[in-house]
Structure formats: structure tokens, C-alpha cells
């Protein structure tokens, strides 16, 4: 065994570097495992797709490219947003099977409001439209969620049954509302939330500015936490542990920003933007693999050197990250969150401690509904349309994301970041297989298998840790 050069604690130096690292940073080993698994999946897809058809990815494939990672994040946001609410529902020993249908219903309602009601009456594009549509989606989602919660808590119908009924009934309502057709197009400003238009991309400058702000917040958060523990004279993490945490957090933020800010706008959009804003397009040499645009004679063509814009963070991804932060705060720092976990751990004890478990049930389901409202806005804005099938099967992906992320169906255990990582994992596997042109049937088989396997690994891990 190699000896550390400087070490004042003899027994500690025997532990592996990883063990000391985990002890010093108090990092959640489960999360470490998930991140490693996610990264392994990404690498595997990149290597395999590179063998089939070489591309610009980290390992020569098409997966670890800015374009694919950017798309992956945008595609994950809707499911990720809802999975954070599902964590709390499952922690409280309930389930919500209705969210897919609820999403369709809310999205269709929002679309009908924009396209058939407000558009014709106050004029297409009026700023009231997108605000009213968003508020309507959030309010309707919250209301339906509260209804689910009310039936579960006060009518004492098991949540499984209430929301199974909702799964069937809400999609019926969505169908009637949409009259079976696709409701489109969405309001121009509303579409920004979907991440499909240039206005919803932050661009390099603001992306980097945001990244730096987040790094500062990480620093302040860790230092503040340390102060708090100092105030009461509790045991502190070693300084190098805290420093490592700050370094890792900042590196992750900056790395993600670097990747996302190097994904250029699609060719057609750069051209359109330049023409609309009278930006001169420089002359250059055509290169069909280039991402910039330039003029060759009278024609606008692709080239390596020329006019180019980069996307950076997209609005739906920012929303998902924001929801993740707020939900983590709610789950860990507020009385509401504490009660959710206590009720999940022992409903009777929570009741005897004076917690109004029924009211809490209504609130948690209402919160779930609110998040479905957000996702409904994201999904319909992204598609630029709403149909009664928009949220189909979303409930299963959301539950799977929460469970892969370590939420225990027995209640009481689950983390927000775990669910978000779970959502990312599910979407990665699907995108990766789509990239490899594997048939949809095969994709389903793999996703289903991964879900079961992830729960098996999780249980094995928990038994070991105890």
C-alpha cells in the first residue's frame, strides 16, 4: 500500500482516496453511482455509434456531441419537471397515474384558449394571450391535482384508484376539448417556453453570466452552511472537503455551459435571423459540414468561417433546473417537505404529532398538478401544438424516473436530484437507441429492463449500506 506523504491521522491514510473523499465531502454515494452510470451509458452510446458511423463526439460517435447533449436536455425537461413532484407523492406512499392524461388535458385547454378563444377575440399575438395561457395551464393543473388529492385524502379512495380513474377520464375530457384534432399553432411568445425558437436560447454571453452566478451561489451556499454549523459548534467538514465540493460543483456548471454554448443554431435559422435583421453575411468558401453561413456569389451556403450563432441554455432546461432547485429547497428546507417525509416514514406517528395528514395529501397532489401545468406548457410550446395524446405514457416515464432515481415505493425515501438524474437516464437511453436507429419496440424492451434492474441494484445497495 502506498503511503501518503503528509498525513496526520494514521488510520485514515489506510483508507482509499475515494473513501476519504466521500467522508470529507459527505457526498451521497448513491448519487455518485448514478452519475457514474449515466456517464457510462453516454460513453457506451458514443463509442458504439462511432463504430457504426464516425462523428464528432468525444469518443468518435454521435452521442457526446454538443448537438445531441443539448437536444437531450431539452427533451428531458418536461419529464424531469414532473418527476420532482412524483418523488413527493411516492414518498408520501401515494401514486399519481393520471399525470399523462392531465398533461394532455391541460395542454389542450391552454391551446384552445390561445387558438380558438383569445386569438380571434383580442387578435393573434396579443401579449395577454401567452400570459393568460400559461396562468390557465398552471391553475387548471393545480386544480385537477387538488381534486385527486381531495378524493384520496377525504373520500379515502386509494390514490391508485383515484388517479387510474383520472388517467382514463382526463384523456377523455382532453379528446372532447380538442374535438379529436390537433390544436395549433401556439402563440409566438408562448413558444419560447418550448425551446424550439431562437428567442428561447440564452446565447453564450448570458449562459456564461448565469454559470458564473451559479458558481458564486454554490460557493456562498457551502460557506454559509459551514458558518451555520460553526455557530452551534457542530462537527465541520475538513476544509479540503468543502473546497473539493465547490470545485466539483463549479466544474460541472462550467463544463455544461461550455458544451451547450458550442452548439450552433441550425443553418436555416441563422440565415432567417440575418435576413430579418439586415445582418450582412460575409463571403466565404462553401463547406457542407460547416456550421456557419456565408455567401458564395448570390447563394447562402454552409461554411466553416462565416456568420454563426450559438444556442447556450434553452428556456425549458432553465425551467427544469429552476424547478429542481425550488423543489429541493421545499423538500429539505421547509416544514412542508419535512412533513411529507415524516408522513411517508410513519403516517400514524405524523398524525399523532399533530400533522394534518389529509391537508398535506391535498397540497402534495396540488403541487404535482402545478408541475404538470408547467410541463404541459413546455410540451405544447415545444411541439407548437396540443393534442389529446400529448402526454400519453408520461406517467410511466415519470414514475420510472423517480424510481430509478432512488425513490422507494414503500414511502419515506427519495430525492429530487435523484429523480432528475433518473429522468435524464431514461431519456439518454431512449435518445441513444434512436440515434442507433434501433426499432421502437426494442427501445421499450430496454427501457423496461433498465427500470427493473435499477430498482434491483438500488435495493441491493440499500441492504449493503445498512
Amino acid at each position, binding site marked *: 500500500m502506498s503511503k501518503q506523504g503528509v498525513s496526520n491521522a494514521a488510520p485514515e491514510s489506510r483508507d482509499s482516496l475515494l473513501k476519504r473523499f466521500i467522508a470529507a465531502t459527505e457526498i451521497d454515494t448513491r448519487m455518485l453511482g448514478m452519475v457514474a452510470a449515466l456517464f457510462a451509458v453516454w460513453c457506451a452510446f458514443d463509442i458504439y455509434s462511432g463504430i457504426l458511423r464516425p462523428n464528432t463526439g468525444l469518443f468518435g460517435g454521435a452521442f457526446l456531441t454538443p448537438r445531441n447533449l443539448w437536444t437531450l436536455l431539452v427533451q428531458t425537461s418536461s419529464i424531469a419537471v414532473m418527476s420532482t413532484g412524483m418523488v413527493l407523492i411516492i414518498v408520501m406512499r401515494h401514486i399519481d397515474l393520471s399525470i399523462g392524461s392531465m398533461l394532455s388535458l391541460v395542454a389542450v385547454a391552454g391551446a384552445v384558449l390561445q387558438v380558438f378563444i383569445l386569438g380571434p377575440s383580442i387578435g393573434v399575438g396579443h401579449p395577454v394571450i401567452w400570459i393568460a395561457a400559461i396562468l390557465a395551464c398552471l391553475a387548471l393543473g393545480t386544480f385537477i391535482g387538488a381534486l385527486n388529492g381531495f378524493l384520496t385524502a377525504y373520500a379515502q379512495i386509494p390514490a391508485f384508484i383515484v388517479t387510474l380513474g383520472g388517467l382514463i377520464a382526463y384523456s377523455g375530457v382532453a379528446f372532447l376539448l380538442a374535438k379529436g384534432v390537433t390544436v395549433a399553432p401556439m402563440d409566438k411568445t408562448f413558444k419560447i417556453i418550448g425551446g424550439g425558437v431562437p428567442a428561447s436560447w440564452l446565447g453564450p454571453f448570458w449562459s456564461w453570466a448565469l454559470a458564473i452566478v451559479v458558481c458564486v451561489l454554490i460557493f456562498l451556499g457551502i460557506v454559509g452552511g459551514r458558518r451555520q454549523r460553526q455557530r452551534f459548534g457542530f462537527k465541520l467538514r475538513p476544509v479540503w472537503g468543502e473546497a473539493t465540493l465547490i470545485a466539483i460543483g463549479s466544474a460541472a456548471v462550467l463544463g455544461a455551459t461550455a458544451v451547450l454554448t458550442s452548439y450552433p443554431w441550425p443553418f436555416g435559422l441563422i440565415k432567417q435571423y440575418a435576413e430579418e435583421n439586415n445582418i450582412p453575411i460575409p463571403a466565404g468558401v462553401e463547406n457542407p459540414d460547416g456550421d456557419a453561413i456565408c455567401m458564395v456569389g448570390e447563394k447562402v451556403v454552409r461554411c466553416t468561417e462565416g456568420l454563426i450563432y450559438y444556442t447556450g441554455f434553452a428556456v425549458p432546461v432553465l425551467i427544469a433546473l429552476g424547478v429542481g432547485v425550488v423543489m429541493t429547497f421545499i423538500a429539505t*428546507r421547509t416544514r412542508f417537505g419535512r412533513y411529507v417525509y415524516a408522513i411517508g416514514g410513519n403516517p400514524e406517528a405524523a398524525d399523532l*404529532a399533530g400533522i394534518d395528514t389529509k391537508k398535506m395529501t391535498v397540497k402534495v397532489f396540488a403541487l404535482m398538478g402545478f408541475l404538470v401545468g408547467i410541463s404541459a406548457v413546455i410540451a405544447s410550446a415545444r411541439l407548437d401544438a396540443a393534442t389529446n395524446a400529448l402526454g400519453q405514457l408520461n406517467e410511466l416515464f415519470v414514475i420510472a424516473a423517480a424510481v430509478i432515481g432512488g425513490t422507494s415505493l414503500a414511502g419515506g425515501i427519495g430525492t429530487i436530484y435523484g429523480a432528475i438524474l433518473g429522468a435524464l437516464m431514461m431519456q439518454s437511453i431512449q435518445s441513444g437507441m434512436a440515434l442507433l436507429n434501433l426499432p421502437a419496440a426494442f427501445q421499450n424492451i430496454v427501457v423496461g429492463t433498465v427500470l427493473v434492474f435499477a430498482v434491483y441494484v438500488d435495493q441491493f445497495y440499500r441492504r449493503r449500506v445498512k
Partner: protein
Amino acid sequence: MSTPLVELRNMSISFGGIKAVDDVSIDLFPGEVVGLLGHNGAGKSTLIKILSGAYRRDRGHIFINGEEAHISNPRDAKNFGIETIYQTLALADNVDAAANLYLGRELRTRWGTLDDAAMEAEARKVMGRLNPNFKRFKEPAKSLSGGQRQSVAIARAVLFNAKILIMDEPTAALGPQETQMVAELIHELKRQGLGIFLIDHDIHAVKALCDRAAVMKNGQLVGVVKVDDVTEDDLLGMIILGKQPDKAA
């Protein structure tokens, strides 16, 4: 005589035809410890759960300081200063000891967020008095031993300046030293003027700690006696035969 702190009048509750508590009346004065005795299934826990708001009575009235108290859930009871240590040690297994201590009454920062550090510090203080060996504040209650869980439950009841304390077999999981500590705690709280209902199987302990003892059998009250007026055998007789001893009747 002064007004009783608690007066339970004609308490009745049944579960699916079984009369778990049948027309029981009992009172408790400030600074008094009343022991509840009886076989398993006699209805002791059920009776006190009515007072603590966990069960809703079918019939009967509760008076606190002479005024009728409407208690229909645990929150109501806590508002009357009634704290309970349940036989089942109602703890949330997945949250830590400090969080369990403050469950339902969390300390918060001035921004309204949980002040976990303050709760932990406070918990360390209280537990330092009650069970100085206790160190596992940050671990989920699940990982605690029976005795440790018991001390968390006791600490929770005494932390919030109760006026009426209900202890349902508080020493069941404790070793001799910790049991002694609970006995001292009861003396101390009694001195402070609390009224205490103590359910205990140990007749010896009831005689030592209580002022009066109430004996129940099959949901009914056999009788209430001053412990100094009876012998342990008398109490045993009441429990087994369900009859008042002749001299105390």
C-alpha cells in the same frame, strides 16, 4: 377541593361491537400522578388515546380546568398542553432524532425555513439531561435501539412545557438505569405541577411513583384507590378479580 386539571366523564368507545372503553370516569389534579393498571387489552391505551386526540370517543365529556374541552384530533390535545408518550413510540423512522423531537413544531429561521442546526442544538441539550449517552442525532430513528427511541419519545413530550403528561408504558424498553432516570423525571415534573397519567405493568413502580391508581378490566373501571391505602396484593386483586378491595371500598 380544587378543580381537577383533567376530568374524563363517562368515556365510551367501541371498535366493531367490542366495548374497548365502557363508561369510564376518572380525574387528575395538578402535581398528581395517577397510575392506570389492568391486563393487556383492558382498555388503558384506548382511554388515554381519547384524551390525546388519537381516537374520537363515542360518548363522554372531557373537562380541562373545569371547562369542557373539545378534543377531536392530536392537534387539539396539544393546544390544551396535553403531551403523550405512546406505547408504540410514534416516531417517523426515516427522519433523524432531532427532527422527530420537533415533529409538528419545527423551529424555523426568520425566513421561514427549517432551522435544523438550532433544533439539533436544542435536542442535544434536552437529551443531555435525559440520556447523556445519546449521541445519534443525525441518524434516522430506524437505526435507534428501543431504549434510544424511548428517550426520544420522552424528550419530545417534556420539551414543550406540557401541563398534562400521558405516559403509556414509558419504561417498557429501558434498562434499570434509564428506568430510574424516568422515575426521577416523573418526580421532577410532578414538583413542577404537571398532572401525569402513568400506565405501567409494574405494580411496584406504580405504588412508588403514583398518588392514586385506577384499575381497568374489560374496558370498565374497577376502581380508583389511593396507593398508600392499599397493598400491592390489593392492587393485584383488583386487576385479576376486577373487584374493589374491601377496606378501600
